């Protein structure tokens, strides 16, 4: 919109265009005319939000008493109302609860796995090494031998492999 119209837009919308220059501008500027038309249409729509004429704008008798009842029921606004009443606050509260739940579940399960020997056996502990050996035979299928042992005790795992090879030859 051109400044000539923009500066006087309230008068233009009220169709109180006194200056000839503005009338002249509107008569040949399609851009301004179109925008003014859009604004006028919206103004008419906004005016639809007026209470109808003749509407008895009085609440029912005893309104003040009901307001006071509500005030007593509501009490002063607390910080918690921010979380309870606003959508953003509610989302923060839900996210915090979900996070707390996740952390709780993680802590409980990690403690349980540390204490429970059955769970502990299922997974190699830190410092232990899982070894898998594939033993290929000439006339038998390949076999996989899994060994779990201390990485420092390399000797014992070697023995296990040799013992297995011996038993394989015997078969």
């Amino acid at each position, binding site marked *: *919109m051109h400044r000539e119209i*923009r*500066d*006087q*837009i*309230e*008068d233009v919308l009220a169709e109180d265009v006194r200056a000839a220059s503005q009338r002249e501008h509107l008569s040949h500027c399609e*851009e301004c005319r*179109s*925008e003014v038309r*859009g*604004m006028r249409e*919206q*103004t*008419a*729509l*906004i*005016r*639809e*939000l*007026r*209470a*109808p*004429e*003749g*509407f008895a*704008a*009085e*609440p*029912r008798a005893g*309104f*003040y008493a*009901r*307001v006071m009842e*509500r*005030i007593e029921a*509501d009490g*002063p*606004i607390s910080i918690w109302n921010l979380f309870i009443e606003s*959508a953003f606050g509610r989302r923060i509260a839900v996210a915090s609860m979900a996070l707390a739940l996740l952390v709780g579940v993680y802590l409980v399960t990690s403690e349980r796995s540390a204490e429970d020997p059955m769970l502990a056996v299922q997974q190699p502990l830190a410092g232990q090494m899982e070894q898998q050996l594939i033993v290929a035979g000439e006339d038998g299928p390949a076999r996989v031998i899994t060994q779990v042992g201390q990485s420092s005790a390399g000797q014992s795992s070697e023995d296990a492999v040799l013992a297995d090879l011996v038993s394989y030859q015997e078969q």
Partner: protein
Amino acid sequence: MDGSIGILPFPIAGEGTRARPRVDHKNSEEAALVRRVQARDEMAFREVVERYQSKVFSIIYGILRNRNDAEDIAQQVFAKVYFSLKSFDFRSSLLTWIYKITVNECYDYLRKKRVRKLVYESDFSQEDAQRMEASEPAVDSAVPADTRLAQRDLILKLLSKVSEEERTLILMKEVEGHSVEELAGMTGLNENTIKVKLFRTRQKLLKAAGRLTRAR
């Protein structure tokens, strides 16, 4: 319309703008009433309620068109006024401040009920629509009630796209019929600022309407 919409480089310096003395909201009769409420004078609060209840009720009814909701929200507005009046800073008139709370409460209500459509799909009964049609001297009486309700729904949606301040200003201008001068007096802003804010609001509404139309 082109890409220049939304660009307003500096405040309007209109020829018709007059420098008016700013209204002193701190030293009015209304300010004295507010101070009494702030000092927990219950009679003063009663006076505030009685003075503004009709105004508040008609603002809410104008937006929601439901008497029961209007009553309920009006109670909520005055409860908020009661609890918040201690932080009222006298920068605007009490009416402007209450008006803002009222419009915000209406929009909170609309938001909570996810209402835009419900406004006319469930809250409005057929009887309401007929009464509205019969009682209102409509802008265009040839427009059927359901179309007008849809238009109201649209404008409420559009108004939700602008800031609280912009919404309050445009409603005070177009619904309450206050002039720019009066708005300047009520808000404590100068006339040029009011004009700029109104213009920007109108442009935002136009843009929002354009986006909504394209999305449909």
